[in-house]
């Protein structure tokens, strides 16, 4: 008991929670944008891989870190565009298209990486984002290490939560986005383009997902490994339901998840002798399923989610 209390009091625990949550924040925000507009994007897992690879490779080829971030976002947007073409104007199964995008994106990323680096025994490293170290603030007790020793990408994630919230709740664009995920006909009848709104949301959402991947190679680690995304994308799909499609709750969901994950890593070092390490590795996935089951009954799905819309047909 004491041990757990100590963990919760330690700065490093909270800093780690936020760090683990960061890629998920990007991913959940991206999934949220897509689903609010009525499009499920199961391409997320593959888009994470592509973002991770593209961001890393851009920097490895000599570009500065911010350019790497932009390149990652752009790569996500490309795959988002493909998914949006398949699911919005063509109205194909969002499930199957999304899985296709995941398979396509991750195999393309792996293929590109292998083709560029045919024979390397250990993955080459880049100089990743360093913690911001804001003068004075960093030296604050507790909040300094937790908040102000994070990297710029974590801050970007937090800022994006506010931006997405502002757009969804405070702008006519957000209203239109929510409307198109509820009743596309309402949007069409007002002369707005259902197709453009939905495609736009999927493209922007996918580029956010790719940033989640880029966080892994450019902030959390400093290299690209196969299998490094390891289900994080899928976890975001569960978290967005848990967050009932609201940016604020998405942040809370990702942070809760980060906390549990940070906790299990620490418990693992404490209780490692008693329980096989795999039990801890399973925890994030089991937690996600539990979270999903808890909210499933009262989940307020966007009404038009998964439903394609065609002009002049209702």
């Amino acid at each position: 008991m004491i041990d757990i209390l100590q963990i919760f009091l330690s700065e490093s625990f909270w800093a780690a929670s936020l760090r683990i949550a960061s890629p998920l924040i990007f991913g959940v925000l991206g999934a949220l944008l897509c689903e609010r507009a009525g499009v499920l994007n199961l391409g997320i897992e593959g888009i994470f891989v592509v973002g991770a690879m593209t961001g890393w490779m851009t920097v490895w080829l000599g570009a500065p870190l911010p350019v790497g971030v932009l390149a990652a976002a752009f790569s996500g947007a490309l795959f988002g565009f493909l998914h949006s073409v398949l699911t919005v104007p063509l109205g194909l199964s969002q499930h199957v298209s999304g899985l296709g995008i995941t398979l396509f994106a991750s195999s393309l990323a792996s293929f590109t990486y292998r083709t560029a680096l045919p024979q390397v025994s250990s993955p080459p490293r880049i100089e990743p984002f360093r913690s911001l170290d804001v003068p004075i603030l960093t030296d604050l007790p507790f909040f300094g290490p937790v908040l102000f020793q994070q990297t710029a990408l974590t801050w970007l994630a937090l800022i994006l939560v506010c931006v997405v919230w502002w757009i969804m709740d405070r702008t006519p664009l957000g209203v239109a986005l929510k409307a198109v995920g509820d009743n596309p006909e309402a949007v069409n009848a007002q002369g707005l383009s259902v197709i453009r709104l939905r495609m736009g949301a999927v493209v922007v959402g996918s580029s956010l997902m790719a940033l989640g991947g880029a966080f892994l190679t450019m902030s959390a680690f400093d290299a690209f490994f196969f299998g490094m995304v390891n289900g994080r994308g899928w976890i975001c799909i569960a978290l967005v339901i848990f967050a009932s499609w609201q940016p604020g709750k998405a942040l809370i969901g990702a942070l809760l998840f980060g906390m549990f994950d940070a906790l299990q890593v620490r418990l693992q070092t404490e209780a490692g002798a008693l329980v096989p390490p795999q039990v801890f590795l399973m925890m994030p996935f089991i937690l996600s399923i539990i979270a999903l089951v808890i909210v499933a009954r009262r989940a307020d799905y966007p009404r038009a989610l998964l439903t394609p819309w065609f002009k002049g047909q209702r």
Partner: protein
Amino acid sequence: MRPWSAILIPVVAGLAALLLSAIPLAFAGAPILPAYAQMVAGVFGSVFTATETLTRATPLIFTGLAAAIAFRARFWNIGGEGQLYLGALAAVWVGTGMIDGPPILMIPLVLAAGAVAGAVGLLGPALLKTRFGADEVVTSLLLNFIILIFVQMMLEGPFKDPMGLGWPQSEPILDSAALPALVDRMRLHAGFLIGIAAAFVAHAVLAYTVWGFRARAVGDNATAARHAGIGVRRTILGVAIASGACAGLAGVSEVAGLKGYLTSDLSPGFGYAGIVVAMLAGLSPIGVIAASLFVASVFVGADSMSRAMGVSSFLADLIVSMSLICMLVGGFFARFRLRLRAAPAP
């Protein structure tokens, strides 16, 4: 979809994906025509390569059936990979010395154990869906990761082969439980025939039985099915059991037919490839046979080409995923034509 387009579209989609693969080939600096020639030779070059293709198709038939049956009922089982490992785990649990007997007894026993394990693996997401309304896409997907970690845990724990020089692998399957080879000195095994039989059984069940009728009705319109007195939850649970069992059999066939023991890298994503197979097959069980032969050819051909030309072996995955996307687009055009002809609006 009309019969001719049900065949034509996947064929065109597959060819289109193969053509598109010229782009990554060129990117990797490989000479394109020789590379294609090498791919063809890698599949049809000899009896060995041909049987290798059939061997590779075997697990894909099972996972393809798993996806096709579930998707027919609009139950999104994306957990084929996990169910495959559960089937394999059950096979080594039963087949490595727990009991022994003649093959006539052992083989059905191992198959049954794997099928049950796979079914149980999907029953979880199915119950979470019917009881709590939890989306089966997410639960079955996440379960893949949980199961794989669980298998690793078992392979480092109770299932570890004491003679395995410390490698995390299971004890070998008993000879009496192993699926016999079909061709002398080749790896092709009886699992292939079982897969084909399973496909025909699945086809017959879907098309000719009340159970299949119910599954299709629930898949096409669950609300109307419920209104017509069909037990939707029971049907979904039944479909989940059948689908999970098929994926479980994929694991059995790989362990008992090919590898002989279980490791945590038994499947290079057969569960996910099964989804591609099912879509290429237009969710038809008979089509699954043809589609898995195609996907297996791509894997075997591209692998052989990769080795010969020094191109990354991820090319195979790339072609398979592109064929899925081409298939989707092709299906759109078929439906689009149908819509134009059949639905003169209001």
